[in-house]
């Protein structure tokens, strides 16, 4: 299908019903944007980083934030996009949490693999508990009570 405003292929299709009257529009991405029909595109991390907070407010609030171990400041991280050492996750915890939520679809907790030497530690148990809790919720939703009971037993053993 061709765009109604130019000769490119139409990729945006909009159906509007106003007072019972239906109108259909078929546009290419460029014309749709010109017409103010917003197309959501995932923003690259650099954009997310810069738009996260207005630079000024942030400079005031987080200007002094710096990791004691590697010496990287929060503002330097914001400019370069890369963290300096594992401790930054602790040093920048507050502002980083919001950023992680944005770039990771709202997720803030790890549910995946745990290195073997951590698996018996408190850290490993926490991840396993979280995963079990998620599985339990799914089992209950699916009304698989046998599995739910098994998961509950497993959780009891862990905690």
């Amino acid at each position: 299908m061709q765009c109604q405003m130019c000769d490119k292929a139409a990729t945006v299709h909009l159906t509007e019903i106003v007072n019972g009257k239906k109108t259909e529009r078929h546009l290419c991405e460029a014309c749709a944007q010109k017409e103010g029909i917003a197309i959501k595109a995932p923003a690259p991390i650099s954009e997310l980083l810069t738009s996260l907070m207005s630079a000024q407010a942030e400079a005031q609030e987080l200007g002094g934030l710096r990791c004691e171990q590697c010496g990287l400041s929060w503002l330097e991280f914001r400019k370069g996009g890369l963290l300096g050492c594992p401790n930054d996750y602790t040093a920048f915890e507050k502002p980083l949490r919001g950023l992680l939520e944005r770039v990771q679809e709202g997720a803030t907790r790890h549910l995946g693999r745990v290195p073997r030497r951590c698996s018996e530690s408190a850290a490993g148990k926490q991840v396993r508990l979280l995963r079990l809790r998620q599985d339990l919720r799914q089992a209950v939703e699916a009304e698989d009570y046998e599995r739910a009971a098994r998961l509950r037993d497993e959780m009891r053993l862990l905690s």
Partner: protein
Amino acid sequence: MDLSGLYQRVGAWLDETGPVNDIVISSRVRLARNLAGFFFCGQADEAQQRQVLEFVREKLTATDVQGSLWYVPMEQVTALQRQVLTERHLISRELAETGGPRAVALTPDESLAVMVNEEDHLRIQMMANGLQLRETYERICRVDEQLEGQVEYAFSAEYGYLTACPTNTGTGMRVSVMLHLPALKMTGEIEKVLRAAKDLRLAVRGLYGEGSEPVGDFYQLSNQTALGKTEEQIIDDLTRHAVEPMVEYERRARKKLSEGKATALDDKIFRAKGILSHARMVSSEEALYLLSYIRLGIHLGRFRDVRMSTVNRLFLTAQPAHLQTLFGEDLDAGGRDRARADYIRRELAGAA
């Protein structure tokens, strides 16, 4: 083992007999890992980076995979050799182009590549032919387990594997598949399909990964989120919600074209073979574009005299650094186009 053995063959991940090989070319799983007790590469000075490199090299030699690993320090290979490794998907452009103490460790079949001192201390990559994400993940886990027996990874209960870029933290895992979707392009449905993939928060790239545009109907699809899901969920989501439906749509589009527009389809396929069998100058973009139709023609049974293995080899060897290595001279762009045309012509004739 030395680099000169590499150029003329293809990695195991380009073998043409993988599952769903009519549409899925290859599967890839990559894990980002960092060592506890070291700064990430960006914040480390050269001495510290060298320390990490030596430490990792020592630990790699202590693992079981070591027997078959080939260790390549970037400082000891030429820029052209680094480009060959990039074209073969064994190192990233970043590793090839930034100087300093960096390395890659490879298995001879090129299925495993461990980059050292890229954005993270370790980037472990496992590739396989066709659609094999689950199998590839299991294989990479075994490598990861061996490594974690030797080194302590930077890990937190809350954020998982800690990485230099917060987009990778969590599982540290990126999974991707390379798809060949020529029929969806011809029927005009490709835009819709790719938009749906982007709505699923997947990244769509070209044949050569990050920063490359899709050329010749080859698309690389990968996850963008690494936190809040298990590795199995990430693989399952990509496979069930994106790859399997796309394979189904592409097959349907191929059937539709074969039934309704067979002549137009055959014209494209045979024209592509005609051009590549006779042209005297071919750019890399044109080569990909035409090889895409030949690949489709082979799967639709249009010709018997071209083998898929030949086409797959050409995908690799028609690239600039491979051509320069094969022809042993510093070719300019025009010279490369001539060399590429000659090489492809010879290969296609030889396959007859």
